[in-house]
């Protein structure tokens, strides 16, 4: 046959079925949809045996607005501002993934300066996403305020840069098929260099504050362990996957845009627990600073929009394309089918936030209900992308 027989028993990738021992009271709790730790409107139906979680079913859809249907009824470019609203913490990377998919569909080249700008903005986005995600995680652990506000202080500097360049802090609508909407001035680049020069000091400060904190270590180490084989099978991507020790980063694997020009490492975890996920994000922040420094040094002059790019009457030839990037939360992909018309025939978002939640139950089973909040926080989701 040539096929390796599956060594594992059937159903190895399903969550365990736990029968209550009868020691504690059986209780069903609906965590959410309005729970401060759910990052929006999200519900977990949790069955508890005393304090122990014996079943957990996530419930989605509170923020569903059928983004894909909207995109199929408007032009290709018309969806660009809508992608900002998917993962609203990282609008730049959403723009980028969509632009990349359309550029694949029509074979559009992107000028070098635009690629550099994309990388700079993308890595700034990654940095602020990871910083605020760590901040939220610590906030949910009970450290009210300080770490989150430290993270937001840096995020604010980065959002100011976004605002100056694109006109909006979050809803940037910055990329176009074949480049970027506006060019960055040299004053903006200088200011960015200044901000990036300060990020290293902040990362050190953040790490000193948190990494060896006794309470954080006690609450996170060994909690919410995700095995590498299950992570791969469940399609988990991004820092969560790498915290489980799987070396898979789309920036390295695909080398899309100009990422193969930069020198950076892919940090990997050992245990796949909440602490590893926290640490991987911290290490990725450092790698982002490295990429930013190189990109800001090398950025060439030139146009930011390809002269061959077509804006009006944009009708791709019939066909399809799947484009993906390494967004801060995982692999963000767009799958487009064109029938030759001005609207996509099929527009599909591959949302890393939703797919990373597939194994939420597996990670939470057997832990205390207080740890569910932490494990959920370590997944790092945004409901705008989960529900679309």
């Amino acid at each position, binding site marked *: *046959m*040539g*096929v*390796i*027989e*599956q060594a594992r028993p*059937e*159903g190895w*990738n*399903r969550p365990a079925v736990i029968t209550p021992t009868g020691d504690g009271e059986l209780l069903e709790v609906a965590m959410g949809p309005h729970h401060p730790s759910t990052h929006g409107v999200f519900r977990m139906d949790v069955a508890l045996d005393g304090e122990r979680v014996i079943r957990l079913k996530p419930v*989605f*859809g509170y923020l*569903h607005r*059928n983004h*894909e*249907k909207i995109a199929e009824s408007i032009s290709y470019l018309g969806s660009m501002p809508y992608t900002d609203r998917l993962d609203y913490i990282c609008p730049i990377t959403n723009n980028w993934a969509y632009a990349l998919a359309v550029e*694949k*569909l*029509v*074979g559009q080249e992107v000028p070098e300066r635009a690629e550099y700008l994309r990388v700079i903005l993308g890595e700034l986005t990654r940095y602020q996403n990871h910083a605020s995600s760590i901040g939220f995680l610590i906030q949910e652990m009970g450290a009210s305020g300080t770490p989150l506000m430290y993270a937001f202080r840096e995020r604010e500097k980065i959002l100011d840069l976004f605002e100056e360049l694109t006109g909006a802090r979050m809803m940037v609508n910055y990329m176009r098929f074949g480049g970027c909407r506006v060019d960055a001035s040299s004053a903006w680049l200088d200011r960015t260099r200044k901000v990036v020069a300060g990020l290293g000091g902040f990362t050190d400060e953040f790490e000193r504050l948190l990494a060896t904190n006794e309470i954080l270590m006690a609450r996170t180490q060994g909690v919410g362990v995700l095995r590498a084989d*299950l992570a*791969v*099978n*469940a*399609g*988990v*991507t991004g820092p969560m996957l790498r915290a489980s020790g*799987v070396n*898979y980063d789309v920036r390295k*694997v695909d080398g899309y845009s100009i990422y193969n020009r930069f020198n950076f490492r892919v940090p990997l975890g050992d245990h796949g627990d909440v602490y590893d996920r926290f640490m991987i994000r911290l290490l990725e922040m450092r790698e982002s600073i490295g990429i930013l420094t190189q990109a800001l040094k090398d950025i060439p002059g030139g146009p930011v929009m390809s002269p061959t790019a077509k804006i009006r009457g944009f009708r*791709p*030839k*019939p*066909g*399809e*394309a*799947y484009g*993906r990037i390494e967004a801060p939360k995982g*692999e963000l*992909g767009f*799958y487009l*089918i*064109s029938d030759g018309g001005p609207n996509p*025939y*099929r527009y*599909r978002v*591959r949302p890393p936030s*939703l*797919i990373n*939640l*597939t*194994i939420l139950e597996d990670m939470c089973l057997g832990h205390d209900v207080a740890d569910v909040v932490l494990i959920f926080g370590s997944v790092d989701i945004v409901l705008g992308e989960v*529900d*679309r």
Partner: protein
Amino acid sequence: MKTVEEIKSAIKAALPGAVVEIAPNSSVSGQHSLRVASESAFAVAKFLRDDAELKLDFLSNVSGVDWPDSLEAVYHLFSMEKKHGPVILRMHTVNRTDKVELPSLTPLWRSAEFQEREVFDLYGIVFTGHPDLRRLLMWDEFKDYPMRRDYVDPDDFDYEPTAHDEVLKRVQAHQSAIAGQASSEVGAWV
């Protein structure tokens, strides 16, 4: 990585009974896909996952597509171990109305669990063998499939306090449809 033709002949060699054909992609992306008959889809998918050379251990994306005469599920497969991809697997239902079953690939790749639920929810493809096939985004009592191209909004105009133009026409059509039980509320809009 192997080309689709080579993958197809590898499948044919390992599974002689499998019905596989190549669905060419005319766009410049050059991502051709493999169309499999739903009867042999599970075996083909298992082969693609376990074959030592392909090792497509990572199912990235599951999409539903609504074509005029059938529904389609498209699977984008990658390999995390060999770092290649995508291999695209597609399967069709017989029609759009009553024969909408396809085999679920969730037993092979857990990542299909929520995505197949979403396709079931929005397109109405029934995945046989799925361990927990419920609606994902819409509520359980919802009847229709919103991503189908012939989907019409339900006759519910509560959201439009001042109906005009096209919506007004639909309100009037709605009113005449429920003429017997027309309430003063509806009349107040017009």
